[in-house]
């Protein structure tokens, strides 16, 4: 074997704490190394040419580059090897930057460790085998999870390009939080007016299959070849018969047992309900938890009201399986609350400012409903307790955001803008009213955003107070808001009629469960994690799964829409080719030693291990051995570690390679 070793300085990133020339010199004496050189930037064109020329000149069989993490440049160097005519899998990387130079200060220590790391890589590459990528077909259909504005946008973009889309929404209607909003910043255009046409477009699009009131149950497969099982929850109404006339909703006698989710608990809804009048699809759902029929079997008011016979009390959840090639996750957010049932929530809840105790201390989404023309007050700002018009409102920003002791370290990003909008809407509706905003900083980055906040302050005379609120208590029918004005350097007390808390955005509570089904990463808050924060912001580390909207991080409507279009574009890139090349790191069975115990089959998470019969020429069954389906195998190697006779090996990480790495340390 002739191995080439190439040590990179990465400018000064490695060179500062590792004597790269000494490493290259020391590595030249490792058995099998034919050439060992150092260079300023291996990933640059001249650096890559250095490798290419060395491969040709020395007829190298393997290459080791000592530079950064393989997650950074493995592809770059494999390509260089390939350009020189060397099989790209005859390449290994030693991570001298992230795992050495950046974490150690001492040159002697860094140099010695670097030599070790290169030696390990050399011993491995000696035992590498030339491999060819596996080609798998691409199913040109997409699944979009979540029917808020992000999911709607992604679905419309993919469908518009001519590909089939399955859109799954867990609520009875698509629309998400955007459908609850009154007006949107910074233009103050009506949210429903711009959203509902898009909802209808989704419903009528020939390429979109809408599955509302449905949830993703199981995800199998891999990029280009996912098989997704979707639970279609029982509506108790037959979608094929229902015309959406709403007679059943009118006749339902259970009017005041359940709070409307859409109205954020500010109003009741019947047991038979559509979330809101513009719902898509406009098919009602029976809330079985409160419906009299499901409790006593007596009431059948809706059955009598329905002229089409669409009510079906016996309906069961249905499971459908869809084959898709790409998945866009757009599950959105929730507001951080103490919740009506705090025990059910993964969050402890803010537990301050009397939220959940005082009726007139509400959150941002509740204020949206009060301000909305379709809301419970018809767009008049009236406080929930006595329906009086509040003369003085206090808005408090950063409730849970930027506050690690009581909430989250992150900034929820949209609250500065929507609080300015709320204060403005209030002043437009209650001219003589007073609006106060307690803020930490005003973060109004965005087109026309800063101007919008200035307008609230200068034209609508909203009073901004820089400081935190220490407590809120009730006194003579008023809410006394005590805080500090850090600019004036004094304590302030405001006797407010109503308080609106800009509570933090959090991911949907089930986001971690969904992430586990999809096999994608999520952070400690439950937000899904992209593969690279700057250069691959919408892709997950699991291939073929893309992120859109607030399930990734707090973001407003324009940002969610752009991210959704970006995710759709990524899915379309995938659909641009008929076959996909995949790394050939898969398990392979040695049929001559396989004893057919099938322990490998038991531990395989992908059902990739099959049974294969070995017959002699006469057709007599000699034995049954394991066989790995390359298309299904994801290359984890669990079978390899499990096999008692070591008859199944993970190509690229064979026992021989790993033992060589271990021995190289001695």
């Amino acid at each position, binding site marked *: 074997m002739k191995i080439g070793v190439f040590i990179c300085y990465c400018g000064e990133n490695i060179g500062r704490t590792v004597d790269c020339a000494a490493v290259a010199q020391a590595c030249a004496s490792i058995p099998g190394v034919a050439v060992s050189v150092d260079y300023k930037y291996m990933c640059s064109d001249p650096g890559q040419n250095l490798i290419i020329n060395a491969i040709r000149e020395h007829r190298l069989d393997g290459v080791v580059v000592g530079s950064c993490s393989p997650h950074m440049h493995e592809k770059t160097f494999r390509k260089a090897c390939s350009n020189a005519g060397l099989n790209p899998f005859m390449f290994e990387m030693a991570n001298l930057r992230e795992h050495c130079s950046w974490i*150690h200060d001492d040159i002697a220590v860094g140099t010695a460790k670097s030599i070790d790391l290169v030696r390990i890589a050399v011993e491995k590459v000696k035992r590498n085998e030339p491999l060819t990528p596996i080609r798998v077909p691409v199913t040109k259909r997409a699944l979009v999870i979540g029917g808020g504005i992000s999911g709607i946008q992604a679905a419309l973009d993919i469908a518009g390009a001519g590909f089939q889309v399955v859109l799954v929404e867990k609520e009875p209607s698509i629309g998400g939080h955007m459908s609850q909003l009154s007006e949107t910043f910074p233009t103050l255009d009506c949210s429903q007016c711009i959203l509902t046409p898009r909802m209808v477009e989704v419903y009528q699009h020939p390429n979109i299959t809408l599955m509302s009131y449905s949830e993703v149950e199981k995800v199998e497969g891999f990029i280009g070849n996912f098989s997704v099982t979707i639970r279609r929850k029982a509506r108790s109404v037959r979608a094929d018969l229902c015309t959406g006339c709403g007679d059943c909703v009118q006749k339902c006698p259970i009017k005041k047992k359940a709070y409307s989710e859409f109205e954020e608990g500010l109003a009741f809804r019947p047991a038979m309900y559509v979330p809101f009048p513009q719902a898509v699809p406009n098919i009602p759902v029976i809330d079985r938890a409160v419906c009299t029929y499901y409790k006593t079997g007596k009431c059948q008011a809706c059955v009598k009201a329905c002229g089409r016979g669409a009510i079906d009390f016996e309906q069961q959840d249905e499971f459908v399986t869809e084959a898709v090639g790409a998945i866009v996750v757009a599950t959105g957010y929730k507001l951080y609350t103490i919740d009506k049932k705090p025990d059910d929530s993964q969050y402890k809840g803010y537990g301050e400012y009397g939220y959940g105790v005082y009726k007139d201390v509400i959150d941002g989404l509740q204020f949206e409903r009060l301000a909305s023309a379709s809301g419970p007050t018809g767009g008049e700002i009236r406080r929930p307790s006595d329906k009086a018009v509040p003369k003085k409102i206090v808005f408090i920003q950063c409730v849970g955001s930027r506050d690690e002791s009581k909430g989250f370290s992150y900034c929820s990003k949209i609250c500065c803008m929507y609080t300015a909008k709320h204060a403005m809407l209030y002043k437009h509706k209650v001219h003589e009213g007073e609006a106060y905003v307690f803020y930490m900083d005003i973060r109004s980055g965005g087109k026309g955003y800063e101007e919008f906040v200035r307008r609230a302050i200068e034209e609508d005379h909203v009073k901004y107070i820089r400081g935190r609120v220490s407590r809120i208590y009730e006194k003579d029918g008023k809410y006394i808001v005590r805080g500090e004005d850090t600019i004036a350097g004094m304590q302030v007390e405001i006797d407010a009629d109503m308080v609106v808390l800009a509570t933090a955005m959090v991911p949907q509570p089930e986001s971690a469960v969904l992430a586990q089904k999809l096999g994608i990463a999520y952070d400690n808050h439950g937000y899904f994690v992209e593969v690279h924060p700057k250069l691959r912001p919408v892709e997950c580390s699991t291939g073929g799964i893309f992120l859109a909207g607030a399930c990734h991080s707090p973001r407003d409507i324009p940002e969610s829409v752009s991210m959704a279009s970006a995710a759709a574009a990524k899915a379309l890139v995938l659909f641009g080719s008929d076959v996909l090349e995949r790394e050939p790191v898969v398990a392979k069975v040695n049929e001559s030693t396989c004893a057919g115990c099938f322990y490998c089959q038991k531990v395989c998470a992908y059902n990739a291990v099959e049974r294969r019969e070995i017959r002699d020429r006469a057709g007599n069954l000699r034995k049954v051995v394991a066989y790995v389906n390359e298309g299904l195998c994801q290359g984890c*190697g669990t079978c390899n*570690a499990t096999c008692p006779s070591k008859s199944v090996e*993970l190509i690229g990480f064979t026992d021989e390679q*790993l033992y060589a790495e271990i021995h190289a340390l001695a």
Partner: protein
Amino acid sequence: MKMPTSTWNPKIVAFVCNWCTYTGADLAGTSRLKQEPNARLIRVPCTGRIDPVFVIKAFESGADGVLISGCHPADCHYNTGNYHARRRWTLFHNLLDFVGIDSSRLHFSWVSASEGKKWVTVVDGVIDEIRARGPFERYQKANSEFALPPALFEAAAKEVQQHA
């Protein structure tokens, strides 16, 4: 056991999965979090790939301590690989004393791709622990005392080949 001398530095072999811990260690590097230099990482796709024999081999090859680290439960890139690793570890950990290795020399942890800081704490913690335990010499001694003379070894190997 011989007391460690001041010049002795423990050798730690860390078997880490590609998706969580290796990336977490990358993050520690990107964040410039200084660490003790004694650990050598061996990257495997998944902790499920780690055969208990690797651990024995590492000790045989001169390691003073071994660390296995992968994705948190339920976060495995390969769905269930880390559960298999955990089961193996539970069993194998109990067998270590039987093969003459103090079980405190083998460590197991979950470090996710976002836990650069935790990785540093884990690595430095393991190194401190092993430093307190002193060098692992039992296998080296055994090797020198009981190893077959090279000629005998080759003859044995040949015989095995003939039978294969």
